[in-house]
């Protein structure tokens, strides 16, 4: 029944009220004012959201499409012209060892930053969720690194991770540990860059998770406390499961951010091209170098599209995982949408079969009429 209201207005004659068969209405002239108000009802929501979509069309969709066009060309930025060369740019990018190294680095830095960051964020949020003094002070303090400009963070950390005279290595040397070659060892450079990312984003994620924690009904904890559950048990049995939907949001945003990581690796050394042996070359850094270093925008556009497809693929994986996890959390029905639709279809089939066999010929009108109304678009498909 609910689908009737949201179904596309396929026919103009259809009355706007879903209830009741149309034949029972007496046709009457609709005044212009009425018509206006109906348009108002139908169109104004679209009008209200249109600024975003128009802007998105101009600054989002158009560049994406334009990038796709350029990616099939040998493009000259200055003269604004190019020659069509098909998939050559894609082939070139995919056959470059640098591309695969960049892909490896991107995922490595992404994992090294996201996982510790989330664990740390949950932990800090749980601490801040306790009854502590000067709550606002601590909460704002956690967010402080997020306020810093990424480039400033990168500058400070790059200095600390200097190979010879950096703070980290001199400290290690004082402790009698051999210094780490932050700029020549690939894994060490990933850790250094992930540290910058974690420094900046942990606080942000902490606050989001803290907000979610505060939405958990306190009764759960009281009940658990009465049952004799320890703080840790309460955390694992109540807090963490309740955080799931928020965690998924945090994971998705940090995935998108992680795959597009740019500022930190770019500022990690003085050249900003990802290291002599591409140790910390990420996809976006590679893209930037091809585009703005070599002025090869056709190739850069091809790489941009490859990155887009990668993010899309990972986004879909994320979505599938999300659906599985969220279903029994906040969904309106215990059944999935697909199952709901299947059940409705089965019910209608039964009904039709019954109607054609004549057993239900004298069935009461109101029950079958709305069903068939929703049925027609289904059957036409």
């Amino acid at each position, binding site marked *: 029944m609910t689908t009737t209201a949201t179904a596309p207005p396929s026919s103009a004659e259809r009355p706007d009220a879903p209830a009741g068969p149309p034949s029972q209405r007496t046709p009457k002239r609709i005044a212009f004012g009425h018509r206006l108000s109906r348009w108002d009802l139908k169109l104004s929501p679209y009008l209200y959201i249109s600024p975003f979509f128009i802007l998105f069309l101009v600054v989002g969709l158009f560049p994406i499409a334009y990038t796709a066009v350029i990616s099939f060309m040998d493009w000259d930025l200055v003269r604004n012209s190019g020659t069509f060369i098909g998939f050559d740019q894609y082939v070139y990018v995919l056959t470059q060892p640098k591309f695969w190294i960049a892909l490896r680095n991107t995922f490595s830095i992404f994992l090294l930053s996201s996982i510790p960051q989330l664990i740390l964020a949950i932990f800090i949020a749980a601490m801040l969720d306790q009854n502590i003094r000067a709550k606002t002070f601590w909460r704002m303090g956690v967010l402080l690194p997020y306020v810093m400009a990424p480039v400033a963070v990168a500058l400070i950390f790059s200095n600390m991770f*200097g190979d010879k005279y950096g703070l980290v290595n001199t400290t290690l040397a004082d402790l009698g540990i051999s210094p780490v070659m932050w700029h020549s060892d690939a894994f060490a450079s990933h850790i250094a860059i992930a540290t910058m990312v974690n420094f900046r984003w942990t606080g942000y994620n902490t606050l989001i998770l803290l907000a979610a924690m505060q939405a958990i009904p306190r009764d759960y904890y009281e009940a658990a406390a009465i049952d004799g559950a320890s703080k840790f048990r309460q955390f694992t049995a109540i807090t963490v499961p309740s955080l799931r939907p928020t965690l998924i949001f945090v994971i998705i945003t940090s995935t998108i951010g992680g795959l597009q990581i740019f500022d930190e690796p770019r500022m990690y050394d003085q050249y900003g091209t990802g290291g002599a042996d591409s140790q910390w070359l990420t996809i976006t850094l590679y893209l930037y170098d091809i585009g703005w270093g070599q002025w090869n925008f056709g190739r850069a556009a091809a790489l941009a599209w490859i990155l887009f497809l990668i993010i899309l693929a990972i986004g879909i994986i994320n979505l599938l995982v999300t659906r599985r996890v969220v279903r029994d959390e906040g969904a309106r029905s215990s059944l999935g949408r697909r199952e709901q639709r299947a059940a409705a279809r089965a019910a209608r089939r039964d009904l039709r079969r019954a109607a054609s066999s004549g057993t239900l010929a004298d069935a009461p009108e109101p029950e079958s009429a709305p069903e068939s109304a929703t049925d027609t678009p289904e059957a036409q498909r």
Partner: protein
Amino acid sequence: MKLSRRTRAIAAVAGAASIAIIAAGCSPAADSGSEDGTVELTVATFNDFGYTDELLQEYMDENPNVTVVQNKAATSNDARANYFQKLGKKGLADVEAIEVDWLPEVMQYSDLLAEVPSGTADRWLDWKVDAATDADGRLIGYGTDIGPEGVCYRSDLFAAAGLPTDRESVAALLEGDWAKYFEVGAQYTATTGTAWFDSAGGTYQGMINQVEAAYEDPDSGDLIATDNAEVEDIYNQVLDASAAQSAHLGQWSDDWFAGLSNGAYATMLCPGWMLGVISGNAEGVTGWDVANVFPNGGGNWGGSYLTVPANGANVEEAQKLADWLTAPEQQIKAFVNAGTFPSQNDAYSDEALTGFVNEYFNNAPVGQIFTDRAKAVSVAPFKGEFYFQVNDAMQKALTRVEDGTQDKQASWDQWVSEVDAIG
């Protein structure tokens, strides 16, 4: 309902207006020329060209109908990105500064730039003019500064190693080719156990800038880098020396800046503009000095030009300004302001230049020293379309060996495969 409709209309107007505002923000500023003969000229530079407000005011006093506004980009890279995004379209300044590093790229679009009026070309050094002249013989850049190279050294570290310390004796000591430079270096490292020069990359840059056609064939523009024996020889020579003599501190890295003051290396190849980098980042260090010598003759590193985009609003006025700014008298003032060493012939006999002394470098007569170094430059290396990429890959190859990530041969092989992928 009526109220709702009105608010809707307001919302629609507001939405449209916000889009209009954004669109207006993107469009370039309105034309600056006007009917009453007054002209506003913009000059876009980067780093520090030495064009102070006082210097620009002089021009405005001489030409009351002109106002000059300078836009400074922070780095040459920022300027480069801006330049190519707007070249041939709208939005560039009336006079745009470019650096020799990306001059080869600019030369591909020389038709989009106004030609320097004939008759002024003999103002500059020949090789400075040649580099900015395209295949059709059009000169498109007004030369500003050049980077003739000497050798900067730490006299205190030289003394500790038992080497001569005054700049005449050091010049005599290092007189010769690169083998001589590395030979003294071997001697220095053997005595002190510390590094002779900062990095293989910086030293390589000094060496490769003496090769006339290093990476590309000047006639055909084809890549010849990987088959060029000269390049391979330099690669081997510098890396053989660097194993013991280099501090392995890549130029412009944080460690390299730290090394300027903590004595990590005793010498460094030094274009004129490097003096400001050293004195600015190693304050309080008294040992730095500069010797009037460069291995294997002269060498040039860096330098800039002014260009006038052909589709600007005030091309003629812009040309006059560029001409004035790059006249010897003004360039000498710029040199005094920012250390940008003149590329103009007449400047070299000017007392204001030759008598210039740098206090930080133990009162070295840097004006005279770099005038001599500029005259010693005999080779103008050819830099074509791919110069930047090939050289960048080479710098990385050298760094890989210095880092210990790869050995000499493996790194060379990787460089060869990278160069093969270019183009």
